[in-house]
């Protein structure tokens, strides 16, 4: 119902190109990300750079568009995210908010974007709620979500013979959701979960939990956590001789920056799912070369930063197709949903009615140190998950927007 109304509005808007007003070709983009905290290497300055590159690459300036960008640090705190995005909408007249790592902040900003009717394109949050229970006509979710992580890694690992699991789960909503989703995938594919232990968020010592995992004799130790927790768990697992003794680790959420930080010696053999890897094909390599040349620390882009680039490219394409900026979030998102996505980083895809962007996912395995030939040569591609299998099937989505 709502869609048809806004489509009508859109038609009306297009029918009167510049009749009453001069065409408004001003756009203001806000990049809101973790600039200093746990995920600063996943997003951070790289997110800002990716946004700048997208604006430059879009060629919009040559077409008479004036695109401004501002950025801020949400510090992984939902209230900070809400305050900044509310102020951006009220005072800075921001048209679109991009990035927003961390599920808690992502969900909080989701509410503000809807209330203020701005475009919200998330790249970095894991929660699949953004396109299910919490879906909104203003929101597009790019890059990945817990469904993809659980499904991609869980299924592939079980099929490869890893049919008994023990979870190390971060004891908060994200970890629990990841454990729950992955457990469902494991049992559906004929594997079984032997047990799990909940560890507090930001644990520095995993030895006790790892001993319990070891005692379970499970083939796979699933790490349903993120960031520093995952890294410490991986590091200490190798110390306790777990990886050497036949048990394997499966990290459910790991970024290339994490692998870089831990080093190949520690991470070799780890399997996990991502949707972008800098060394995947010519398109990703060309982008990544330009990207890393401009990064202070010469890091290659993560999938989150790539997602920011791709989502801004698509957003600007939609605006360009509309001819002028309506400063109306729902309208622009509807336009974006009507156009197929296509960029060199994620390939062809589309935005589903619930706001989920679908594109292929990839199961990677970290190379052994001796297999790595050049800097950042970290991944082997194990399997490609086609776009239509990578994300929640529309029929299963609980998004209220889908109910007609």
């Amino acid at each position, binding site marked *: 119902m709502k869609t048809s109304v806004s489509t009508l509005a859109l038609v009306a808007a297009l029918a009167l190109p510049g009749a009453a007003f001069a065409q408004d070709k001003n756009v203001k983009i806000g990049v809101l990300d973790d*600039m*200093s905290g746990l995920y*600063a290497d996943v997003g951070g300055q790289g997110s800002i750079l990716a946004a700048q590159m997208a604006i430059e690459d879009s060629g919009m300036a040559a077409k008479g568009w004036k695109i401004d960008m*501002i*950025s*801020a*640090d949400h*510090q992984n*705190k*939902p*209230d*900070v995210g*809400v*305050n*900044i995005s*509310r*102020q951006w909408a*009220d*005072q800075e007249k921001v048209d679109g908010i991009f990035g927003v790592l*961390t*599920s*808690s902040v992502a*969900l*909080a900003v989701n*509410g503000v974007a809807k209330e203020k009717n701005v475009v919200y394109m998330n790249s970095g949050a894991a929660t699949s709620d953004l396109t299910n229970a919490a879906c909104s006509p203003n929101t597009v979710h790019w890059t990945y979500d817990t469904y993809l992580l659980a499904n991609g890694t869980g299924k592939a690992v079980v099929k490869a013979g890893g049919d008994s699991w023990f979870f190390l789960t971060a*004891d*908060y*909503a*994200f970890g629990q959701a990841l454990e729950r989703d992955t457990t469902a995938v494991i049992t559906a594919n004929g594997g079984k979960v032997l047990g799990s232990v909940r560890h*507090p*968020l930001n644990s520095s010592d995993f030895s006790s939990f790892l001993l319990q995992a070891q005692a379970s004799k499970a083939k796979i130790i699933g790490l349903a956590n993120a960031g520093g927790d995952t890294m410490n768990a991986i590091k200490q697992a190798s110390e306790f001789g777990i990886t050497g003794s036949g048990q394997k680790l499966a990290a459910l959420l790991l970024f290339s920056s994490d692998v870089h930080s831990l080093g190949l010696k520690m991470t070799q053999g780890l399997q996990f799912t991502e949707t972008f890897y800098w060394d995947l094909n010519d398109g990703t390599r060309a982008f990544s070369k330009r990207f890393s040349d401009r990064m202070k620390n010469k890091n290659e882009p993560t999938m989150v930063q790539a997602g920011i680039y791709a989502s801004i490219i698509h957003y600007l394409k939609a605006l360009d197709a509309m001819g002028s900026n309506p400063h109306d979030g729902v309208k622009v998102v509807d336009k974006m949903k009507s156009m197929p996505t296509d960029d060199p980083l994620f390939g062809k895809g589309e935005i589903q009615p619930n706001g989920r962007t679908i594109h292929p996912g990839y199961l990677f395995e970290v190379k052994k140190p001796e297999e790595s030939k050049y800097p950042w040569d970290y991944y082997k591609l194990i399997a490609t998950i086609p776009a239509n299998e990578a994300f929640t099937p529309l029929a299963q989505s609980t998004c209220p927007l889908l109910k007609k």
Partner: protein
Amino acid sequence: MTDAPMKTHAAAPQMRDETVVIMAMVAVLAALPALGVYPYFVMQALCFALFACAFNLLIGFVGLLSFGHAMFLGTAGYASAHAAKVWGLPPELCILFGALSAGVLGLLVGLIAIRRQGIYFSMTTLALAQMIYFFYLQAKFTHGEDGIQGVPQGYFLGFLDLSKPLVLFYVVLAIFMAGFLLIYRTINSPFGEILKAIRENEPRAISLGYRTARYKLAAFVLSAGLAGLAGATKVIVSQNASLTDVRWEMSGEVVLMTLVGGLGTIFGPVVGAFIIIAMQQYLAEFGQWVLVIQGVIFVTCVLAFRRGIVGEIAQALRRNL
């Protein structure tokens, strides 16, 4: 903290001075939105100002440095958010419920913490606050990292529509003033005089027959409840309750606000809160440097500026402010 200037002037002219300053403060605050200041910014600063005033009641007038005051801010926040979102209570009851919850927590924590003085008291409050933080991190009703989002604002007293920024603003200002005046009355009451006597010389107060532990506990509970009032109001403003408000960084921030404004002054915490919140607001894009700047301010204040802004002004004017 005996460093703050606390001379006992003749009470009457002093009170008159303060009344003038209080009225001027209300006038300026009430006019801010009309002057084009973003109302949400002022509201947030007001909540923190009340929080800092509540904290200052302990450090400035009882000499107890609590390094865990965030637990009261956050507890009230969660309580009122839960009351508003899950139970559907009207905002005034939510705020009241939040403040009460913080007061009850204050009683429990106070019973343990006031057994020690000085640095031990600070460390104890910090450790207990960290325990509370972990509790909220894992508790179901707080939704852990996600926090409680989309808290309904509703109608204050049944007719004031809080979703209108200006209405919300004046309600918040009224709540702030109520809390501020309560603190002001308390420190000028006989009860307040006894607290100051405890701060200056506890053994003497004991020998005069005062059961100082009870007075300290009462002050602690009052401070916790008022910090809770700030936290609950903040939740109604920002429409979300999150772990940020229970972290130790938050406990540190309120110390900083009070220190910058002036420990043991009446208006110092308000000034300090506005400065720190403005700084966070305008330096947000510098992300990682905000903490460093806060650290530098801390060090500067402690080394060279112990009276704080209002304390220095008061010293120059030879008045208590």
